[in-house]
Structure formats: C-alpha cells, structure tokens
C-alpha cells in the first residue's frame, strides 16, 4: 500500500530574498535579462573561511536546505537528493578559465573539486554528517522533478521516512553571455516582465529551493505530493493526452483541478505550451512564478514551494495570479506544469492535507 507523502518544510534563496512569511507580499516582477539573487547572511551556517571558498550555489543550497530541515524539525534526513541543470557553473568556469588562460599551468584544485555536479548535495551531507543516500540529477528542466520522483519512490516504499529534496542553479558570467548568444536569455537591453514579454528568451535568475518530504503528516505539513511524471518530448498537440493520462492515473478529471501552476517564462517562442495547457481547463485559476524568481533549469522547484504555500493558506495572492479567473472553491488539487524550450516536460500533483 502506497503511503502519503507530505511537504513538511521549505527553504529558498531567490531573486526576491529567502523563503519567509511575507515572501509574496514583498515580491516584485523581475525586468532584467539576468537578475541577481538576494542573498542572506551565511554567517550562522558557514564559517567565513569556508564561505570564501564556496560558490554562491553551494551557499544558497546549504541555506535553503537548512531552512527546509528546520521548518520540518528534522536534524538529519534519511536521504539527500538534489537537482541542478548546470551544476556548479561558477567553479567549472573558474577552473576552465585557469586551464585555458594559463595554458594548463599554475592550477589549484579547489575550483575543480567544487565543480562536480553533486557538490551541493555532498556539502550538505558533510555539514550534517548525513551518511544516507545522496543523489544528484542533472537533466535541464526536469532535474528537480527527477529528484522528487526518486524521493517519492523511496518514501512510498518506506525505504526512507524523511528526505531532503532540493534544487539549485547558479549562473556564471560567461555562461550567461553564451546563453544570450543563443537566445535562451533575453538580450540585456530588453526589459520586459514575463507578462509583458513579446520577445523570445527568458529573464534568468539563480535560485535554490529545498523541501523536507516525509511520510508523516505534522502540524507543519503544507500539503501532500500525490504524483509526478516526466517526459523528454511532448508536442503541443500531444499535451492534452499527456495531461489526461496523468490525471486519470491519479483518479482525477480536468474539473478536479482547482488551480494550475504554470512555468510561463516570457519566452514568446515556447510559452505556447502553457497557453495550450490553460485552454484544456475550463475557468480554472492559473498561477505563475518565474516573473518573481526568474528562469533557470530548476526554478520549477519554486513553483512547487509556491503551490504548497497557497494550498496551506487556502489563499492566492494577486501577484501570483496569471489569468483573471478568481478562486471560488477550496484549493484542493493543484497541478503544476513545466517545460523548457518545448522539452523536458513535467507534471506534479499536490493536494491539501
């Protein structure tokens, strides 16, 4: 018999600051092509000597992970599973520059050591002394969802009772320039919000979002995660079947979904998938979040945090509302849909608890 799985803790470091009660009240839509993350002070978690050697991604990951654990009152989880699209981009770039600029001489290992994709998960484990299962998924916009899928299977089986699952992506300078060259990121002189956007490319920002998932429902539980699915390719015409099959598998119909959380990124070439998804549902509230936290391979993790918060509050702040439909019923079932440039599609289903 499958056990229920709950989100019992959330943590995040984003362009709007860290995860907190007033997050959505205090947030403003991003307008730049590349947006800086509002970093907290790491002093209480990381010694200054260590912090100096760590990239932003590692520090953001450690902070968000600790927030998620603290909220759930978990000291050491049974497993740590992370997702990242580009991994430790800053250290990779630093080491590569050193190799190229110094013609393979005078190199030091620190940046190389920290360049491996599993560095954040490993550093969290090292900090906590967590000897459990430790995985890192790296597959563009389903990196985080792959981590959640892995966690769901282990929690369903009872192999683990609480799992720290998270996502982190940092953006290094050169990589950002290259992503602008191929149109993934909007040009620097374009200043559009997701809703105003008429151009290709997205506004990017770094972020880290972590969750404590558990078999146990507690006073802190935000919501239940019912299921998720991933697929490398789904055409716009295949989307209705993709959604329908997933809902049916979970004993639901389109009208059972009380709100949609969509990955609208303001990329005029690829937001069509979300418009298509909205059309499937008749008069259902649609929400978005990348206007606040920006696009990166794992920003969809923040979408899950947002959904969990709203389901828990049974309220939707205006800033997150995409369409004009107002919520006229309890927020029970929420469906999240994300894709990146028409690939790596994911559906996640959460329910109030």
């Amino acid at each position, binding site marked *: 018999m499958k056990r229920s799985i709950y989100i019992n803790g959330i943590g995040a470091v984003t362009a709007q600051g860290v995860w907190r009660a007033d997050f959505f009240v205090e947030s403003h839509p991003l307008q730049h092509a590349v947006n800086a993350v509002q970093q907290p002070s790491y002093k209480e978690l990381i010694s200054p000597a260590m912090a100096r050697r760590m990239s932003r991604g590692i520090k953001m990951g450690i902070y968000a992970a600790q927030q998620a654990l603290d909220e759930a009152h978990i000291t050491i989880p049974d497993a740590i599973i992370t997702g990242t699209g580009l991994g430790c981009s800053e250290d990779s770039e630093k080491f590569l520059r050193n190799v190229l600029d110094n013609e393979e001489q005078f190199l030091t290992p620190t940046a190389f050591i920290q360049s491996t994709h599993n560095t954040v998960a490993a550093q969290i484990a090292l900090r906590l002394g967590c000897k459990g299962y430790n995985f890192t998924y790296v597959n563009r916009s389903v990196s985080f969802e792959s981590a959640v899928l892995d966690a769901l299977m282990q929690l369903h089986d009872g192999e683990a009772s609480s799992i720290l699952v998270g996502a982190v992506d940092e953006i290094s300078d050169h990589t950002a320039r290259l992503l602008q*060259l191929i149109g993934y990121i909007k040009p620097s002189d374009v200043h559009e919000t997701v809703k105003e956007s008429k151009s290709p490319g997205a506004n990017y920002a770094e972020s880290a979002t972590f969750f404590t998932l558990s078999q146990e429902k507690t006073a802190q539980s935000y919501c239940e995660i019912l299921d998720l699915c991933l697929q490398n390719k789904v055409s716009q015409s295949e989307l209705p079947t993709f959604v329908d099959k997933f809902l049916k598998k979970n004993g639901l119909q389109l009208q059972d979904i009380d709100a949609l959380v969509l990955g609208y990124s303001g990329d005029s070439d690829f937001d069509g998938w979300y418009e298509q998804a909205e059309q499937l549902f008749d008069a259902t509230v649609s929400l978005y979040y990348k206007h606040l936290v920006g696009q990166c391979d794992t920003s969809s993790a923040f979408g899950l945090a947002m959904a969990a918060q709203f389901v828990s509050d049974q309220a939707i702040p205006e800033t997150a509302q995409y369409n004009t439909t107002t919520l006229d019923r309890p927020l029970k079932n929420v469906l999240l849909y994300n894709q990146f440039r028409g690939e790596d599609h994911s559906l996640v289903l959460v329910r109030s608890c």
Partner: protein
Amino acid sequence: MAGAGVAITGIGIISSIGKTMEESQQALLSGTHGISRIEHVDTKLRDNIWVGEIKYSNAELADLLKLPAGHNYTRTAMLGCYAAQAAVASLGSCDMDAYKTGLISSTSVGGMDYTERYFYKYLEDPALHPYISTHDAGDSSHKIADYLGIQGLVTTISTACSSAANAIMMGARLIKHGRLDRVIVGGTDALSKFTINGFNTLMILSDELCQPFDQDRKGLNLGEAAAYLVLESEEVVRKENRKPLAYLAGYGNANDAFHQTASSDNGEGAFLAMEKAFTVAGLSASAIDYINAHGTATPNNDLSEGRALQRIFSDDMPLFSSTKAFTGHTLAAAAAIEAVFCIVALQQQIVFPNLNFKTQMEELDCSPQTEARPAQLEHVLSNSFGFGGNCSSLIFSKA
C-alpha cells in the same frame, strides 16, 4: 520483486579495450590493456600521463553513427549513442513504442570537451553556436534518447565517479515501481583537458600504468568510455521471450560524509553502500563470489576500499580485482562498463585479472586476482565511489 532481481536483457559498450562486446571480452581474457598516450585531446600533459583513450577521432565516431553534416554531438554524446545503440541492438528486436521505455544516463564531463575548445571562440564565431547548448550534462542524454527513438522518461545523474551505478539503481527502482517497463541505463564520459588537469592538480594521476591495490601504486590513469544496460520488467521478459543475461539483485548508495574528495580511512561510506546492497538482494556477504572493485589505484581509494572490504568480508575475502588497469578510470561511465564486465564474468564463469599488481599492500591481508581464471560465480559485487563521498554498490546474479 520476488526472485532474482531486475532482468538485464541487453548490454553495449565502447572503451579503450574494444568497441564491441567480443573485443572487450577478448581483451579482458588475454590481459590486453587499452592504456596509451593521448592523441585526441590537445594537452601539455601528453607526455606525463597514460590514458584509456578510444582511438577514434570525433569525425570517425560521427561516421560510425551516420550523423548528418552540421550535427552538434559532443564526444560524450557520440560515445553514449554508440554504446546505447549497441545495447538495444543486442536485444534482437526492440519496439521502443510497445512498452513504457525510459533512459537514465549519466555523465560527469557532459559537453565540456567542446566547451573547452570553443569557450572564448563562441563570442566571435556564430558558426560554432550550435555547440553552446551541448555543455550541460542533460544534452548527451537527449541526444541518446533521440538517437534511439525514445519518447518518455529521460533523465541524467551526475555524482562524479559513481554516476553510472546510480543510473542503474534508479532504473531498477523505476522498473520495480512499474513506472517503466524497460529502461536503458548507464553512463558516458569523454576525455577532456578539463578533467585531465583537474585530476592532475589533485596529484592523483600516475605517470606509469596504474597498479590497483599494489603497495607501490602511484595513482590512476584516466579513461573514456560508455556502456549501457537494458533492464526489462518480468512482463516484458515473458512477452518477448527474452533470455536475461543476468539479474541486478541488489544496490545501495551511501555517503561517506568525510571529505569532498578523499575517502575516510575506514571506508565507512563504502561499507554502508555494500551493506545496503546485501539487504536489497536478500543476500549475506558470504554469497558473493567475486568483487569488481572500484580500485582506482590512488593511494587513498584503494586503502579505504580495501579496509571496507575487509570489514565486510573479514577472513572470507572472495576473489576480487579492479579492471581499471585495462580501461583507465572512465569516471561517470566506470560503473557501467564494470557492470558489463560483471555480467560477462557471470555468463562466462570467469574472473578477470587485476593487471600490474606486484606487491600486497601492507595495510591489507588480501591481494587481488592477477590472472584470468574460471570460477563458479553466482553473485558478484561491483563497487563505485565518487567525489562528494558518493559510494555505490551493485550486486549482479547469474541468470
């Protein structure tokens, strides 16, 4: 999953000891290694290091795969496509749409082989731009899925040198949970200037042929490879009349939580990973007939792993060897090629030698197997450990 475990019905491999199963097997049996000086990576270290390099240029690989002109396949992607295609071909028949089919791949270097070539040139030459999007680790997985015609669950794992073991583990979980009927699992990594220099700064590259588990070992030889297994559900095995090559009986992953790159003295993570694998397989340590060790030939790994093995097996150490002296350490692909070697060992009832071994380590009471020899093998264990304290163990059982 009652019974033996998850069925392995197909395998494919390319490494410096061969581009087919037959070539690989021949090399292992005859003790012929694939270590040489590097030809296809432009590095100043070429005369200081030995590598397990696949002697095909990128253009030759593209021809083998019949890629169209103007493709943007990195070397990592091409090696992956080659091995994954071979794994699927070994099934005989395989209709990708007939069952829920997925791909769990792994890589550590991803598209770094092209990024390091064009990093600055990208800014000046738009003709190179198609390679920009190949940098991330997911790119090679997408290319492999497209090459094989897979539409479904496709994802990638990157946990340094244990990556492919973890991809195999995730694949088995997806089959057990009925989320997939068939999954292609494994890893691919090409040699790159980035990784060569990285390992060089850590001072763990040997300037000679590597000597796993030898008292005088000087470090590792890097290599490149790709290998994939096809895992299929009981239902597919029955419906398609498959003859499984072997079963994946157990798996375990644990974290050493000791240091970002070094392993703990007592091999705690390795010990825990092996214990978990025994639990999943429902086997005791005494059931293991052969261990394909991680055995990178660095002073640190072999001591830590050796101690963990002695903690698990005490006085009853099974035959063991590291095959890294044949192929070099192929990083994210290592656990996949070694899984293939374990399956061949089970099929042929033969243990492969640990080349270049001369002197037993003074800290250990055991030595690896140095000659290919017939042995009765029911269950074999394969270890893979990576940076970040990542420790994985897989148990394969005879079909």
